[in-house]
């Protein structure tokens, strides 16, 4: 957290602290065991603001007061961070990155050709897949007559037994 963010959070924490002290609860929970002083939060925020913007204090001295203010604001500082956007962020997954399904009928030049038993499918790395063979979803149980294995880290698909011309195959991420 930058010093400027700490100052802003300190100023916001002042009124949050007043409101929560007034309600004697925090986040709709139980009573505050040890209410903090909003006046003291404001006093320290002012000191850090004046010391920081003045430019006459050393970085070490600024850090001392900044850390004190962060400790002092505590839960109110966290809530302030959420409202100012200084509390970090999560980058959403782009749904358009999901790969498309692959459907084909086995022949000599199909996606996996006649007699094929393995294929690296790089566009599906990182995903689980359903391998549908002749309308039946294949499992990875190797004691069954037909099965597959799928390594989602390397993208290597192995098929048992080998594909035969004319089979309808669907690979769905």
């Amino acid at each position, binding site marked *: 957290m930058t010093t400027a963010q700490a100052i802003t959070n300190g100023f916001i924490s002042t009124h949050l602290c007043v409101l929560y002290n007034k309600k004697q609860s925090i986040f709709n929970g139980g009573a505050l065991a040890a209410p903090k002083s909003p*006046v*003291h939060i404001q*006093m*320290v925020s*002012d*000191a*850090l603001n*004046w*010391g920081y*913007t*003045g*430019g*006459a*204090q050393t970085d070490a*001295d600024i850090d*001392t*007061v900044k*850390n*004190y203010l962060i400790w002092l604001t505590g839960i109110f500082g966290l809530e302030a961070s959420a409202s100012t956007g200084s509390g970090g962020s999560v980058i959403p997954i782009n749904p358009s990155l999901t790969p498309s399904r692959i459907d084909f009928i086995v022949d000599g030049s199909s996606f996996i050709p006649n007699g094929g038993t393995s294929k690296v499918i790089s566009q599906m790395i990182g995903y689980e897949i359903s391998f549908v063979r002749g309308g039946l979803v294949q499992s990875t149980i190797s004691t069954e007559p037909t099965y597959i294995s799928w390594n989602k880290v390397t993208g290597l698909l192995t098929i048992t037994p080998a594909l035969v011309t004319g089979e309808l195959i669907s690979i769905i991420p």
Partner: protein
Amino acid sequence: MSFTPLFTVAQSAATPNSVTITDTSTGSDAAIVSRRIKARDCFGNYLPSGSQYTSWPLATNPIAVDMLTKDTAASITVEWLDSGNNVLYSLENTFCLCEYGKQFYFYLIQQLAQRPATLQDSFFSANLSLFWTYLIGAINAISTGQSLSGSQNLLDLETEMQNNQTMYF
């Protein structure tokens, strides 16, 4: 384009005796040939002491003026003059110049940050609160009340605490 007088004032935190004035006027007037600064405290005393004004050459902007020895509520006027030293334009504003107090207050909070339990000392914490109240009050007296004397009264109270810090902190 018509001339509109404007200026800003900033006090140095590192050297609070020094006040930097920046001419931010817009437009122009060919008749202006010189410029000067008149600064006074709430009693009408000139700042810096002993000189009624500080010449401010047009080629110099901003200008730093050594005018303070303590926190001061000041009225600062900038005058733009013609060749006959007649005042063509004049602008006056009031300022609470309290960097001495602000930096001393930061020092107090820094001491507290190193030993948070000091806040349990009611003598210390009461005087700390008083000091902060004097500073905020002095700033507000100018920014919202335009009261030089009111601001200076509060500044004098916190200055007295600075000068006798062993008694208060």
